[in-house]
């Protein structure tokens, strides 16, 4: 069947908007198969990856085998849960056994992962289908996915623009219908930034919740792994599968209800069913949210500010109480983050910077070299600052369910842009991209980016929620999502722009 010039798999003409939830319902209603969904994703990769460069490695053969296996298992009565048969892409920073983990760098030439990273083991146990490894900013040390040994990834909304980074290929793959979800990593914002730039959801869980073993580090004290997906519910389903189950509701305080998958779904998923139950969204009218003003809101593009204000208005109209809070040392966030990440990255890269500096992309090499000059006394000052900032975020959260702020102060920047003018201020792109996300890597608080409308030129805007614990944040995000996302944009304004 031809549609708009694309060949489509029958019943899979909505692969770029299909959610994991809907896929699950239709799969179990025998309306589609895992193989059909995987074929649709692979077909979209074949058609669009030359334009978007989202993938470094497409694993078509193994993906089809996994999908057929998923269909056989389901037919035999073995249902692994919400991720059963779901096509997922993986940031090429994460080990998948038998494939290279390139980190988008020539430094890693010849590498082959001997084992699956624990997060991949969890995905396999959950029945997910791995369609391929996605492009990223080299060694995750950037915010635009421009500096990659495999060339820049591109934004599905406008290929002249960055998809954000460092998990840019991951975000582009989901936004463009090449996967239903993806795994990314986040050291300064590298899940939330590309999620924001590509109009999808990106979850950075609390630091330490998900194992980063088998993942190439940038800064182990700031690194997180987490999902990007089309909805909060989908991101939550992936997160819980990675966790291997939800926390005990008696201890988490969350009221857990079984998620409705439709009449064909068994009431019990079986031993691997952990994660099938989503936390119930709390009533929006019960929520007290806090907006950190000052530093977080003073440098925003006009359309970003307008969409953020509109989201606040919708939340208030739904009954949420929203007040302002102050993070006293906010102006020191970039300096604190910089000294931590540079020193940690230099530790990991010191030997290869000596042995094979020419294999790095030039800009990443220079930033890594910069880290080798950080003095120990200043690193120690940054560690102290980290504790101060953590207490300030805790304090801001004390009376509130979540903090509410934009995810990115600007829309996706043009590829090659070194700086962007915001009002009367010209700032380096990198500083702007990290500005609103890096604090929560420093402090470790869980944070999730949600789509929040578009600019007047059709580029995605995004709002971020930050909580105390991931189990507490997700019900809030589920509740706030309709108000934050707002009315659906015109179909013609979706990804697929040239």
């Amino acid at each position, binding site marked *: 069947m031809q549609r708009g010039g694309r060949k489509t798999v029958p019943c899979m003409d909505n692969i770029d908007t299909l959610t994991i939830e809907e896929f699950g319902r239709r799969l179990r209603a025998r309306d589609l198969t895992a193989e059909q969904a995987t074929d649709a994703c692979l077909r979209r990769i074949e058609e669009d990856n030359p334009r978007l460069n989202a993938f470094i490695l497409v694993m078509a053969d193994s993906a089809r085998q996994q999908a057929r296996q998923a269909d056989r298992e389901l037919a035999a009565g073995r249902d692994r849960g919400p991720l059963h048969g779901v096509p997922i892409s993986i940031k090429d920073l994460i080990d998948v056994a038998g494939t290279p983990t390139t980190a988008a760098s020539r430094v890693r030439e010849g590498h082959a992962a001997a084992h699956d990273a624990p997060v991949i083991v969890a995905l396999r146990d959950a029945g997910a289908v791995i369609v391929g490894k996605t492009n990223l900013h080299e060694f995750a040390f950037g915010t635009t996915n421009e500096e990659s040994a495999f060339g820049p990834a591109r934004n599905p909304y406008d290929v002249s623009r960055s998809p954000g980074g460092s998990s840019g290929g991951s975000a582009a793959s989901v936004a463009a219908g090449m996967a239903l979800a993806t795994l990314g990593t986040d050291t300064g914002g590298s899940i939330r930034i590309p999620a924001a730039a590509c109009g999808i959801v990106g979850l950075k869980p609390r630091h330490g919740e998900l194992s980063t073993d088998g993942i190439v580090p940038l800064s182990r004290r700031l690194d997180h792994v987490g999902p990007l997906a089309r909805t909060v519910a989908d991101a939550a389903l992936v997160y819980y599968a990675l966790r291997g189950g939800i926390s005990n509701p008696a201890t988490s305080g969350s009221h857990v209800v079984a998620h409705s998958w439709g009449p064909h779904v068994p009431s019990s998923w079986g031993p691997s069913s952990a994660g099938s139950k989503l936390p119930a969204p709390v009533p929006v009218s019960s929520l007290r949210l806090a907006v950190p003003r000052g530093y977080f809101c003073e440098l925003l593009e006009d359309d970003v500010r307008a969409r953020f204000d509109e989201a606040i208005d919708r939340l208030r109209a739904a009954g949420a109480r929203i007040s302002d809070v102050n993070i006293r040392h906010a102006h020191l966030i970039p300096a604190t983050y910089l000294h931590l990440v540079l020193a940690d990255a230099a530790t990991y890269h010191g030997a290869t910077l000596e042995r094979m500096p020419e294999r790095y992309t030039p800009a990443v090499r220079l930033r890594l070299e910069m880290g080798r000059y950080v003095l120990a006394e200043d690193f120690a000052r940054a560690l102290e*600052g980290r504790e101060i900032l953590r207490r300030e975020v805790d304090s801001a959260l004390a009376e509130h369910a979540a903090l509410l702020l934009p995810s990115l102060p600007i829309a996706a920047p043009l590829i090659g842009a070194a700086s962007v003018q915001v009002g009367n201020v010209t700032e380096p792109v990198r500083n702007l991209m990290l500005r609103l996300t890096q604090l929560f890597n420093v402090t470790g608080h869980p944070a999730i980016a949600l789509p929040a409308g578009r600019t007047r030129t059709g580029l995605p805007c995004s709002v971020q929620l930050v909580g105390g614990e991931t189990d507490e944040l997700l019900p809030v995000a589920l509740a706030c999502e309709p108000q934050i996302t707002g009315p659906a944009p015109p179909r013609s304004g979706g990804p697929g722009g040239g």
Partner: protein
Amino acid sequence: MTVDSWLQAAIADAERRGLPELKPLLEALARATTLLRSADWNEDAAGRPEDRPLHG
């Protein structure tokens, strides 16, 4: 080591290593370091101002 002396030494080292393009990055790092050192969470071995004797 003051930030200024650190910066001079770092730039000299970068040039010796054939990386003059590091200079603007090191200057940016120096600005960040100056800000970090100005943070009010940094302690002073002479004690906080309110701890000093009024007649000192």
